[in-house]
């Protein structure tokens, strides 16, 4: 089987890998980089649990070959926390019990992060639309949506605080 050398930048770290070209980004993240936070679901684009961010945008790692995404900025759920400090989304999800079995949560967190990064004050409808590709079979979505709202409020308050401190 032909292997190819590829360079992937994941969570700010650059990795050089020798992989067969037919491996999906999902497989390379999990099997070669041992970043098993990204989950493996339908494999066909229909559940969203494999979502990662590429240059800040949510994409499905099950439908991408790793070779296609070299030299791009890839973020997985492992890259969400700031060192020991959880991301405000992770904090809010934990506080509100928005994760039940947790299988959908890595993808949901990243999709929600992409939303808040470009729309810090989303409406409930905008949250629903943004998360429409992240299926959850446990929660019924209500707590997930509430957690995104709580994180958005906190992040906005932090930004406001940082701005007033800078003045």
């Amino acid at each position, binding site marked *: *089987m*032909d292997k*190819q050398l590829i360079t992937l930048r994941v969570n700010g770290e650059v990795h050089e890998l020798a992989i*067969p*070209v*037919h*491996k*999906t980004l999902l497989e390379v993240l999990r099997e070669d980089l041992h970043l098993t936070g990204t989950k493996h679901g339908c*494999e*066909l*684009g*229909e*559940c*969203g649990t494999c*979502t990662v961010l590429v240059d800040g*945008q*949510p*994409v*499905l790692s*099950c*439908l*991408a*070959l790793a*070779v*296609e995404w070299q030299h791009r900025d890839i973020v997985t759920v492992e890259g969400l926390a700031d060192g020991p400090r959880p991301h405000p989304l992770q904090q809010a999800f934990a506080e509100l019990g928005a994760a039940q079995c947790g299988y959908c949560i890595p993808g949901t967190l990243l*999709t929600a992060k992409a939303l808040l990064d470009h729309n810090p004050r989303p409406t409930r409808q905008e949250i629903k*639309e*943004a998360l*429409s*590709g*992240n*299926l959850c079979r446990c929660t019924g979505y209500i707590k997930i949506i509430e957690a995104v709202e709580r994180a958005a409020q906190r992040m906005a308050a932090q930004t406001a605080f940082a701005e007033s401190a800078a003045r």
Partner: protein
Amino acid sequence: MRPIEYASPRTKEQAVRLLASTWGETAVLAGGTDLLSLLKDDVIAPRRLVNIKEIEELRGIAFDPRKGLRLGALVTIEELLDDPRVRQHYSALAEAAEGIRSPQIRNMGTVGGDLCQRPRCWYFRAGFGLLARDAQGRSLVLHGDNRYHAILGNEGPAYFVSPSSLAPPLIAYEARLRLFGPGGTREMPVQAFFRIPQSEEEREHDLRPNEIVTEILIPPPRGEASATYEVRQREALDWPLATASVALQMDGDRVTAARIVMGHVAPIPWLSPEAAQTLVNKTITEDVAQAAGEAAVRRARSLGRNGYKIQLARVAVKRAILRAVQGGAR
């Protein structure tokens, strides 16, 4: 997935040289949202993938009020949706793009790929071929689960439905499509790109194995009233059951010409001159829109379990017309 060779050319000339002249040998890779599924399910097993995403000239949206809109084949569905000029001048297209969910699919999927995606017919996806026949040559669709199959253009031998949500509005606007292959450029109306295969050797597109779609050209806006209406079982992560896109040329309140195209009801996007004709010289009312819906499905026929789609198509046409004159109101 099976082992495969991979090439990522920088120009369309290089890409075409890397593509074989027979189907099955090589495959074009754009966003991969359909191609990777086809590979994983072993519907196709090419020996080489040609990634076209590094070809710069296939990108970009350009708009000129006199020349119209140019969409590079690699424009993503999200880029299309985010462009205010598309929303302003070609609302039927923006509404169709909006229906394609999830956001992840829209970030990856391209306009060229949307037009070239293969049918969702579950017999085809399970490896029974485009015409879905058993060993004796009998149609599996006619004797099996045809709930999601064609209600128009279903005289056979093809019964799948065209999966593209973007094709109906593009055809309503009389868009053209450009291809590049070993013989140079070919151009045709988007409508002519789709055809009903008559044998397992034929495809549902007028596309050769070593050609790539390079761009889509939409004529300048003529102040038409236009809209798309979709009927879906689920709001996300699925294809529509029936859609209609309409573009109406107006003289004040009066329709002077119309294009009505239904999606997901036939093996090709289904242009209905019969429905359009009922609107000419009329002012749109609920009754007029209803009559156009009736005309659109007059020749429709159930295959046994998909009769309900006739009503959905009728309603989609009616509501698309009403939405067009109400200025995009929901």
